[in-house]
């Protein structure tokens, strides 16, 4: 049976409204064959987790510019665990200090993409996170 296309939620948490990153990355991923669920801005962790469950996604990609990544990562990953979202991978992107990356990974964020990461690097990294399920 043919596998469906990889499904990913793209959005932002809290009150940070900077959308250049998620708009551009959403387009790149659509072009690369991903099914993108664009959730835009002003989301709560609860809403993202609910959508991840309902939409049966493989990945959740969230972007930050204003420095709230640690605050939200903690709540988000707590909820993901309690909802049993073990098969969903979470990735972050945006303006994130390098020292925070190991902390985010310890909380369960699989990958962190800084500004200027090339399109191909993001796509191949997401594909490898999916464990080659979807091929190339």
């Amino acid at each position: 049976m043919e596998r469906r296309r990889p499904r990913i939620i793209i959005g932002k948490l809290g009150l940070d409204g900077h959308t250049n990153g998620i708009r551009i990355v959403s387009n790149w991923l659509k072009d690369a064959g991903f099914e993108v669920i664009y959730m835009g801005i002003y989301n709560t962790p609860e809403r993202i987790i609910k959508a991840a469950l309902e939409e049966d996604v493989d990945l959740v990609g969230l972007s930050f510019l204003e420095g709230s990544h640690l605050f939200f990562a903690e709540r988000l990953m707590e909820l993901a665990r309690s909802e049993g979202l073990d098969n969903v991978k979470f990735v972050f992107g945006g303006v994130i200090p390098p020292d925070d990356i190991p902390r985010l990974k310890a909380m369960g964020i699989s990958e962190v993409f800084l500004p200027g990461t090339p399109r191909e690097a993001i796509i191949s990294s997401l594909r490898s996170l999916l464990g080659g399920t979807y091929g190339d």
Partner: protein
Amino acid sequence: MWDRSKDIDFDAYIRGERPPNYRTTSGIELKEFYTAEDAPSRDERPGQYPFTRGIHADMYRRRFWTRRQQTGYGSPRESNERMRLLLKEGQTGLNVNLDVPGELGLDADHPLAQGDIGLVGTSLSTLEDAEELFRDLPLDKISTTIILPPPSSAVLMALYLLLAERQGVSPSSLMGTIMNDSFNQLVGPTREAVLPFFPIDASVKIGVDVMEYCTRQIPKWNILNINAYNMRQTGIDAVQEGAFAMSLARDYIGLLLQRGLDIDEFAGRIAFFCDVQMDFLEEIAKIRAMRRLWAKMIREDFGAKETRSCLFKAAVQTSGLHLTAQQPLNNIARATIQTLAAVLAGVQSIHTTSYDEAYALPTEDAQKLSIRIQQIIGYETGLTKVVDPLGGAYVIEWLTDALEERMLALMRRIEDMGGFMKCYKDGWIENEINKARYEMSGRIERGEQVVVGVNAFRDEEEKLPISIFKVYSSEMQRARIEYVKRYKKERDQKKVENALSKLYEETKKGSNVLPPVMDAVLSRATLGEICDTLRRAYGFEIQV
């Protein structure tokens, strides 16, 4: 064996290097060279209509541009300390920003605010907070820009007036600017960012209330600062930046005229906040073209008689969008080049973005360096000794004309569609922005736009050579939440209720909201409570 020759592409030496294309960032094709024929002599002087060459005849010979770094993070106390440090280092004007909850009219104890308290501006809710923020800063000696959209701009304006009163400073001595732009202060004119927290028509109405009040009561205060910078930072080009900003100003002017004000009462008190990016010649020409467009629009379309009304006052920030996380020290060169362009364009104030801002808010050292960049240009290069040093350069004059023509054409198009505000509400502006974003990312991906360290000359083994400012602190956020909760408990509740219900009634009646907002902050109502009252009066609920 160490063999560097393997890494070196000697064939590239033979090929040589050249630009990937000969277009400006906004797509204007440049010729090989320009001659006098491309730049018809206008015999125009700085300080003379239409002010292409600058709004003052003596410009920086008499007074440098204002060094105005945007500041604010954490609590009002921390922000006050950073502002005073910057003033000690040679900053000459203040630029105050609230955190996003504050921009959206929420107190720290609002459930939606929690993660964003004090991150990209100061957390502020009360009159006591405002006193803390401006402690030991004489409001009659230093000019302040308050970068907030309505309705928060109304609350901060009220707080500022009350602070001045407590400092014994009369409104006639206050110098500064309230941004007051309903469309752009968050992240540019996107509907998704602006509309969920306040109804846009009410926001514009309250903004115009503030403008009208300030026009009549605070003679030296700038009543509106069109935020072209935030528009541009979405990825649009120089032509769009100029045309969008000018079209939006046009709509605001129409609304102020409807209030019965004369164009000469307020046009001289509208300012612009522009971007300056990497395309050196185009950015200089852009500012010159905007000066000319403004002067012509104000005199020819709106019939202004006073010279002051025709002066296009530009505050500039160098581009945050162009900062790279890769090889961050390269950003010092970028910021310097952009600051230089702003100076050559003859702007009124400059914020030089710091090199570490692709990672976080700037460190003290990085912000100090931003001030030093401006001081080096101001004191060491000699560029401040002559006005409009590039005036008459064939290519600059040609590009100024070309940009003016293109901006004017786009302004007419927007006008034909009903003006900027309508185009925003219809979603046309947001579509243009999204198109521009995709095109920008495409240009960088295809290498048509080279970004050193990102799509060329990358350093894969790079170690970060800079230290990063730590702003996030759960203790700071908790302290702010507790402070606001305590403040709301320990006050005369009856007084607060009365003031808020008066504000509610006056808002319903359509009165100018500034006087009842002043009463409300005096009675110790908070920023969030005031904005909530306004939302209720407009029958609006936060749509998040």
